[in-house]
């Protein structure tokens, strides 16, 4: 028996192979053999893609899809024909390029990118995970780690001590659920999260490669660090202590380290890249403008009003779209209901009402707040403006009823 025990230990040690070295960039147009591990990973990604394609929150606006595909192709260059892009209306900062080349771009990312250069950088980062085969490398690394753990377990069993190891997947699934506020199919998320558990080294590599790709495509390299700075600032603006103290809770996948060192590495590489001052701010804003209102409404469903208000401040910095932005600023205050929030909401609706692009509901909300404040004349003026501008509104009868009750009260 002694001999066989020694043989077992040797076998266990043999299982603990070293992790694979980082791979070179994959060639364009490559399809893996279906018998290979990569073929298996592609097969699973194909299923995730089939599920993603038929989700109800896929955004089908042809102009937006053409725009996002255009920017993706700029950073992906030769690989453009390998990629299939889906825009999803989901209020979290996220994009991913699956191992089979399907791309998800979430509206939360588009709402938070200041300009095309920042957006292109994030796409370049995600694309680099694809181009460097990071999923395959991560899988092999996990397998080696599991083999090391198994070797340890065999060794422990030999000396007669029971070993137990805890999986971390449950807590990861939980953090995803928290971050997205249960808006999204958790099973599906757990499946895609399994692909995207990248190591810190892989994230750092994707950061620098993404910045390089965006710069080669003609964008200002300095915007890469800017996009992470904005994410960090928004994290700090959260209503919740737990979020403020976390590293990167606006990102669904916690594997993205957002420490200062990551930003410093991007700042350091920027001067070595082709110089450009093109940030594409105007054309980016024009592309997302038709969706601002719907995406902000989605963002309010996260019920982190501190973050939504921070985001609105950032979007309003250039003085554009002030009707829509002030209306949603009012909505955030109205829903938050903190001390003095009703007054802030009224001021925001008022500011919105002075703009040409305001949603008509601003007058209805203004009427409600003034009515509550006892300002009957002001409330009547606001309700009447609403009815004059939106006579066909579904809730016109409700507003009419509020008007009637004002008359009775006075």
């Amino acid at each position: 028996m002694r001999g066989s025990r020694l043989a077992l230990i040797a076998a266990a040690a043999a299982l603990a192979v070293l992790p694979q070295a980082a791979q070179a960039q994959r060639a364009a147009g490559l399809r893996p053999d279906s018998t290979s591990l990569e073929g298996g990973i592609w097969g699973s990604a194909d299923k995730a893609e089939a599920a993603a394609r038929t989700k109800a929150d896929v955004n089908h606006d042809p102009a937006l899809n053409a725009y996002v595909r255009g920017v993706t192709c700029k950073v992906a260059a030769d690989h453009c024909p390998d990629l299939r892009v889906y825009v999803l209306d989901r209020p979290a900062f996220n994009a991913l390029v699956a191992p089979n080349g399907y791309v998800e771009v979430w509206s939360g990312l588009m709402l938070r990118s200041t300009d095309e250069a920042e957006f292109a950088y994030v796409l370049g980062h995600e694309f680099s995970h694809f181009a460097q085969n990071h999923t395959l490398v991560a899988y092999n690394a996990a397998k080696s780690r599991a083999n090391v753990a198994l070797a340890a377990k065999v060794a422990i069993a030999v000396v007669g001590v029971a070993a137990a190891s805890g999986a971390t997947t449950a807590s990861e699934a939980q953090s995803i659920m928290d971050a997205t506020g249960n808006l999204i199919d958790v099973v599906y998320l757990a499946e895609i999260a399994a692909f995207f558990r990248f190591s810190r080294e892989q994230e750092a590599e994707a950061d620098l490669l993404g910045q390089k790709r965006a710069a080669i495509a003609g964008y200002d390299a300095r915007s890469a660090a800017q996009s992470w700075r904005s994410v960090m600032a928004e994290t700090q603006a959260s209503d919740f202590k737990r979020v403020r103290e976390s590293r990167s809770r606006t990102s669904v996948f916690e594997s993205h380290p957002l420490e200062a060192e990551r930003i410093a590495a991007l700042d350091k590489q920027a001067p070595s890249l082709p110089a450009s001052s093109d940030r594409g701010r105007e054309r980016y804003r024009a592309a997302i403008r038709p969706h601002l209102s719907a995406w902000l409404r989605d963002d309010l469903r996260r019920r982190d009003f501190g973050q939504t208000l921070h985001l609105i401040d950032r979007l309003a910095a250039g003085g554009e779209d002030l009707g829509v932005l002030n209306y949603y600023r009012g909505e955030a205050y109205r829903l938050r209901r903190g001390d003095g929030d009703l007054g802030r909401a009224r001021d925001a609706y008022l500011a919105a009402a002075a703009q040409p692009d305001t949603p008509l509901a601003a007058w209805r909300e203004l009427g409600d707040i003034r009515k509550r404040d006892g300002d009957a004349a002001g409330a009547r003026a606001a309700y009447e403006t609403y009815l004059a501008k939106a006579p066909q509104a579904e809730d016109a009868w409700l507003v009419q009823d509020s008007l009637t009750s004002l008359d009775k009260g006075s």
Partner: protein
Amino acid sequence: MKRLIATLVACMLISACTTTHTQVMANPVKPAAGARILVVDPDIQLGLLTASGMTEPKADWTEQARANIAAQLESEMKARAHAYRLLDPDDAMGGRSGQLMRLHGAVSASIQGYGYALPTKKGAFDWTLGEGAQALGAAQSADYALFVRGVGSYASGGRVATAVGMAMLGVSVPLGSQQCFVTLVDLKTGRVVWANFTIAGPNADMRETAGASALVKALLKDAPL
């Protein structure tokens, strides 16, 4: 020593034959002869169970098993007195039909998760997609729908070696197993008429034609078809 290892390997590899666990709703309505059955293309995912317990997805096995199970389902349906047609689920994932396909996915996951009966149903097999399922029937011109889902893994050589070694030390290491779950849904009422859960035995390897045939026969055992 050699004999001990051989015995252990035999103990682990020779498990019971393919087992089934069928459930039928109370007062089932057996599909009439000539009823139109929609056979949804089976959803299969197979993988390789590696030494340390991680499963590697295997695209070639998955595709081979899917084709085998689909062919066996078709030949079983041919032997019966019903009209049938095959449906690629990718062609039906849009609109109302797509919602019903997903609803079925959720319901069948619950049937498995709760062991066939919800705690509040006092052991009764009582599951339905609701009468809205008629929309799927109308869109696909069918009276019933048959869904098959299969998942499984096969142990690698390293995994078997590990299991043998660990068994000698008194520690049990699970080897791969494959399961199939089938449901028959009445598209008029939406009710799940019948369900069966099968664990494949050693002679029911769905990657091979003969194995898939044995598995599908076990799967459709007692089916009211």
